[in-house]
């Protein structure tokens, strides 16, 4: 009898719980009261306001509600950000669902225009350029930093751009660059390579001293290393090629099919030579990031094409075994034609998008005002330098410097305070960036800026929807073919004597047809 009563009770409880979702509901009720709050308040600074943001959460600096920079932001603007953190690895999945369902937060962070072209066409995103008059600081930044070219590259066919420029920098710099083990080069009296040939000789020497090493290695597939080295040979490869093998040569002012060019062949031959002589890691196209870092820290490799700043992390571990372990940035070596080649870079590396629905919200003006605030000096200081006394100090001459514990890596400002965060750091302060770099790296960057070697990205093509479909078809088979062949040439599976056959096959896969289409589209959009 007792058992039966228990069963009935449980049934009743479950039944109740299922039909009344409010019992366990957590965020839903709060939300309604928030929006009421927003409608009441008049100005961005009068009453506290809350905006929502989809946030890409990087595990190495996991999101914390009580980051001092966010508190300071609320203090300055009276705005609280209600952040929806999403693990970085799944961010695109979540964003797709959020955008498709129409249930979009006020700000969607870490999103590039190229990732949301289709959504822009469907009208669910806000065309930022139409509201520039309401965002004076953004307009000023565009003018002062000379962002017009880069903004043209994210302009869609309808003439609007939908992405807020984030991580804006005044100078075109590329921080994915050549790094090398300066302590070892010095120890063995090897000069810092100036040309690609020098790289070969230096690697050769190091290989003879450390026979079990591979002087150059790489992670994130062959596309990574190819994209960084190809510009030295006057061409593009890997990630640098996005339009089915075509790239825009700003000097000749025309679109060139890279994979069958002479320069591309030179590039592959250089790789092939490096690999054959054991100077390039035979696993370079497949290495896992962890194994790659392991190789660096245990002295099995000496040249890296890595993001500047990573070396600090390697020090912490590597210096326990080898106290001299030092990695320094160097200028990209000159290629056969005597030019230094650097991978293309944008003046802004990231973006936010805003849903079109906010234009109908009562808080729209305040949202724009808040977004505009990120382009003010206050915000730049807060998210690039942090909080005075916690992460940086101001010298007598007014210049800012990070505190010693920040520079030494003991105190991670991003993890502990949220500053220098890829999402919030909307405007990049070059002084802040340089403060972190070694003297050599600073010099290398100055040199790069002086020689103006960092090219902008290819201009954006504006095909019609039909043309885009057709191009996609050709591109996918063409891309597969030449990427596969690229690796076969490097690994020596395909002989260079078959180059003509390879050229012909590219033709068969539609390289010429694609070129024709690209040129037609290019001419059309320039005549507009």
């Amino acid at each position: 009898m007792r058992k039966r009563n228990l069963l009935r009770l449980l049934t009743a409880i479950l039944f109740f719980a299922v039909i009344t979702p409010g019992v366990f509901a957590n965020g839903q009720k709060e939300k309604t009261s928030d929006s009421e709050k927003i409608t009441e308040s008049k100005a961005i600074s009068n009453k506290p306001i809350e905006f929502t943001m989809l946030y890409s959460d990087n595990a190495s600096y996991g999101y914390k509600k009580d980051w001092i920079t966010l508190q300071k932001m609320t203090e300055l603007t009276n705005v609280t950000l209600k952040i929806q953190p999403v693990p970085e690895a799944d961010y695109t999945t979540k964003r797709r669902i959020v955008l498709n369902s129409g249930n979009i937060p006020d700000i969607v962070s870490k999103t590039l225009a190229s990732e949301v072209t289709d959504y822009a066409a469907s009208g669910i995103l806000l065309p930022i350029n139409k509201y520039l008059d309401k965002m004076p600081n953004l307009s000023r930044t565009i003018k002062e930093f000379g962002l017009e070219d880069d903004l043209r590259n994210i302009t869609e066919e309808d003439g609007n751009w939908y992405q807020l420029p984030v991580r804006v920098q005044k100078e075109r710099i590329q921080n994915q660059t050549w790094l090398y083990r300066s302590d070892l080069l010095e120890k063995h009296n090897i000069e810092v390579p100036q040309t690609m040939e020098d790289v070969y000789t230096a690697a050769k020497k190091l290989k003879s001293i450390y026979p079990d090493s591979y002087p150059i290695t790489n992670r994130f597939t062959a596309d990574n290393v190819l994209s960084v080295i190809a510009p030295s040979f006057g061409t593009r490869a890997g990630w640098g090629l996005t339009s089915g093998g075509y790239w825009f040569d700003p000097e000749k002012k025309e679109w060139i099919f890279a994979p069958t060019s002479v320069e591309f062949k030179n590039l592959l031959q250089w790789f092939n030579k490096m690999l054959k002589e054991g100077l390039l890691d035979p696993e370079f196209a497949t290495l896992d990031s962890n194994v790659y870092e392991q190789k660096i820290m245990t002295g099995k490799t000496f040249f890296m094409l890595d993001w500047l700043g990573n070396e600090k992390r390697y020090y912490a571990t590597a210096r326990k075994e080898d106290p001299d372990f030092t990695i320094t940035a160097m200028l990209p070596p000159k290629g056969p034609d005597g030019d230094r080649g650097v991978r293309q870079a944008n003046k802004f590396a990231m973006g936010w998008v805003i849903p079109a629905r906010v234009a109908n919200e009562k808080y729209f003006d305040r949202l724009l005002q808040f977004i505009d605030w990120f382009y003010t000096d206050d915000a730049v200081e807060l998210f690039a330098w942090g909080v005075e006394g916690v992460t940086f100090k101001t010298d007598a001459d007014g210049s800012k410097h990070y505190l010693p514990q920040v520079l030494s890596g003991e105190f991670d400002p991003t993890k502990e305070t949220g500053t220098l965060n890829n999402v919030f750091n909307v405007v990049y302060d070059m002084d802040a960036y340089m403060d972190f770099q070694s003297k050599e790296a600073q010099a290398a960057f100055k040199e790069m800026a002086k020689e103006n070697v960092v090219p902008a990205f290819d201009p954006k093509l504006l095909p019609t929807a039909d043309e885009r479909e057709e191009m996609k078809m050709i591109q996918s088979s063409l891309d597969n073919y030449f990427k596969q062949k690229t690796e076969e040439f490097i690994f020596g599976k395909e002989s260079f004597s078959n180059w003509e056959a390879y050229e012909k096959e590219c033709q068969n896969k539609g390289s010429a047809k694609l070129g024709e289409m690209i040129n037609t589209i290019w001419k059309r959009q320039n005549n507009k």
Partner: protein
Amino acid sequence: MQDSKSYKIFKTFNVICMACITFITLYPFIYMFAQSFSSAQAVINNRVHFLPVDFNLSAYTSIITESRFWNGYRNTLLFTTTGTFLGLFLTVSLAYPLSRDDFPGKDVILKFMVFTMFFSGGLIPLYLLVSNLGWIDTIWAIIVPNAIIIFNVLVMRTFFMGIPQALIDAGEIDGLNQLQILSHIVIPLSKPIIATIGLFIAVQIWNDWFSALIFLNMDDLYPVTLFLRNIVMGSQMTAASGQAVDSSAVTTLPQTLQAATIMLVTIPILAVYPFIQKYFVQGMMIGSIKG
């Protein structure tokens, strides 16, 4: 009785084979376990194989001081207990009528259910449904869509069908109604299958990070698996597109930290298995009808 020679050879071979398979399945755990207690240097230099090298607890201390980890754990426990309970309740209530021959329309319902095993509306319709029900950011979004797994229902129905009709008839003659038959005869006889299916459901909810990713927006509600996923997968995909913008985007977390998180998240659910295991092997009708 003496075993024949060929049988002995077979037995030896069998033992070796099983030992190999056991080792293959067990080694990843041993390896993770050893890594989680080792120093980061030892792991990077590839010195860790079976036993921890440079024994230390720093990976564990850095995780257990993380408030999001404990918060996630609490949510996972809540989801798993509530979800298992609800899942079992619904599975039994659906499986039992379908196991009865005298239930009209049984075949139509069964076909309807099996259809959903092969076809679904897709992710976005599911999201819209859950969102229109007002379940976004609630526990229901996690436990209700997964409460009934058709496969589990079919397994349980098959088990119920094995219960002798004579027992049920006897109950009816003694004046029990349908609910009483279910609670007094069927459920007590079905402990093994209920325990097994209960474990299936619990493991499934414990491991589920995807529903949480899709349906939850506020990290106060995230289960611990989402925390784990961020730690393990965090840096692996960021740079794969070539869009990494600086060193912070390609940072990899120490492997010791990943290993420690994996240990802490998997051990509790693994610990449930030994308690349920006896039901896996138990005969189903023990103690009901003999002879």
